[in-house]
């Protein structure tokens, strides 16, 4: 896994240097928050191979709850994030309990339907601010002393969390816990016959994934000062799937790469606005959903390994012994 390690180091270096390049700070922070979201999603779907279409529920509720806590209860930043993570984890536990026994497609649809319930709840609940969302969320002070309103500080705070998340997930994968997960993914019945409570392991993995997604949501809310209905909509669930697919499902940093590409695309297209080709003019900003849809289709048809997956495939001489793209070819 030398290639992966090199890529990781490259990413870390880029991350450390980024604020000095003059790229818009909020954009970078948004990339990283979504990067954490994608890593969280990838941990479950990418390594375990069960597609969840409901992760927006964890992300969005993390955003709402963290935002609410820091705005209305005045807690410090880290407490707010922790609260968001706890709520997301609890939600993950409930979803998991209902869905985890089912396979593949059933599991996916159930997570979608449950997330939709959360969406409807958010539409109606008073504290979410409905269409307007939860606005003017302050960043607060980290541990009560570090002021996160300073762009540099906030950036490195999120950066550290991103690195920590990637490292944590990596650690989990290579730990005994992760080995069991891998065994479950490769041959569930054998894992059961060896005495492992597979449902329990899957549930724990799901809860961890949910909690990390909640962390991402909280960071996003604090960065952009906003938590809105978009964050819990199923399209958000779709976006995070695309990020991982595009970047490389089942790879360590693929999700982050995918997140950066998707956020970049959305920002650029929205920013470019109207483009003229002779007599015809396009408003690119309204075409974003179409482009996302087309990229999705192209990825599924032609580019299933994702960017990082292709890079690793190119450099790898022997077949990968570690985690490979989950929904593998020809699963019977």
């Amino acid at each position, binding site marked *: 896994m030398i290639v992966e390690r090199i890529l990781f180091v490259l990413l870390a270096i880029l991350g450390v240097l980024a604020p000095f390049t003059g790229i818009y700070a909020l954009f970078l922070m948004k990339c990283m928050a979504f990067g954490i979201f994608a890593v969280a999603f990838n941990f479950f779907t990418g390594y375990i191979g069960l597609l969840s279409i409901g992760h927006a529920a964890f992300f969005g509720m993390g955003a709402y709850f963290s935002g609410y806590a820091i705005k209305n209860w005045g807690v410090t930043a880290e407490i707010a994030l922790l609260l968001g993570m706890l709520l997301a984890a609890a939600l993950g536990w409930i979803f998991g309990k209902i869905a985890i026994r089912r396979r593949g497609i*059933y599991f996916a649809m159930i997570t979608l339907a449950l997330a939709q319930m959360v969406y409807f709840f958010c539409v109606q609940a008073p504290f979410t601010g409905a269409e307007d969302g939860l606005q003017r969320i302050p960043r607060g002070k980290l541990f009560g002393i570090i002021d996160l309103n300073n762009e540099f500080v906030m950036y490195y705070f999120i950066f550290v969390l991103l690195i920590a998340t990637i490292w944590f997930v990596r650690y989990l994968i290579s730990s005994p816990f992760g080995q069991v997960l891998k065994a479950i993914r490769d041959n569930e019945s054998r894992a059961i016959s060896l005495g492992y409570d597979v449902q329990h392991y899957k549930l724990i993995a799901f809860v961890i994934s949910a909690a990390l997604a909640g962390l991402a949501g909280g960071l996003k809310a604090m960065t952009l000062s906003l938590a809105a209905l978009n964050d819990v909509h199923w399209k958000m669930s779709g976006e995070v799937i695309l990020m991982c697919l595009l970047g490389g499902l089942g790879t360590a940093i693929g999700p982050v790469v995918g997140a950066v590409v998707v956020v970049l695309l959305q920002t650029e297209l929205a920013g470019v606005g109207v483009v003229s080709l002779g007599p015809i003019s396009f408003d690119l900003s309204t075409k974003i*959903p179409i482009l996302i849809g087309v990229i999705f289709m192209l990825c599924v*048809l032609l580019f299933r390994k994702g960017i990082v997956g292709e890079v690793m495939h190119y450099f790898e001489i022997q077949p990968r012994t570690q985690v490979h793209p989950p929904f593998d070819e020809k699963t019977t």
Partner: protein
Amino acid sequence: MSIFNISSQVFLGQLTIGLVNGCFYAMLSLGLAIIFGLLNMINFAHGALYMLGAFAAWFGLVTFGVSYWCALLLSPLIVGLFAAIVERFFLRRLEGLDHLYGLLFTFGLALALEGIVLDIYGSAGLSYAPPSQLRGLLDLGFMRLPLYRAWVVAVSLAVCFGVWFLIERTRYGSYLRAGTEDAHLAQALGINVPLLITLTYGFGAGLAAFAGVLAAPIYQVHPLMGSNLLIIAFAVVVIGGLGSTLGAIVTGLALGVIEGLTKVFYPEASSTAVFIIMAFVLLLRPAGLFGQETA
């Protein structure tokens, strides 16, 4: 007369709306169930195809003066053909892979289709008037029912029954059931399964488009009309069991009615009622009410 302090008018009114909704749930979940049975894939584009059906009818009316009655026939044909082409040239390439890729592809397709329509027509709803023959009210004595809604219920039930009959009692249906059970074996016996798959996907899409035309005069025609309905249709098939055509129809109708009744007695919960029921059913009967334990 009143039931639990709710006037019978309101009660019957909501019941009717619930029944009408239920008809759409049934038709969409029926298509989803059929496609899932043979292609082993969740057609995430189903809502978008339904929406295209409605839009085709609206477009036909506004641009060419195509009547509602013609639209009922033409719209499913056009959308069905489009879907068959998508299956033949794109979905077929995903056949040997994990079925979740099919879901993801159709997810992207739905986004693209909705995005295109949204871009061209905006997000405001477009209105589509019911044909003159179906306007007005039907006086049933105990209530006055909008004629169009009665029509929708009648046609939906007829179509659902027709599809059920087609699948359970005809030659094509036996090919479909055989292919659903074991596609390789069916091929080895001489059945052109790839063609069957293409036609079935087109048929499912046509069914969705047909529902779309039916829906146009009731719910306004707008780009996102499909996505909201689709998610409920998913819940319906999960509750009813993905393998069962009868399950999809019965569950769809029942849930529509239950949703309608919930609106009467406890309106805040109405949009989540279906999902709550789904959660309960799953905890008690993981394979769904009519499903076989294959997942």
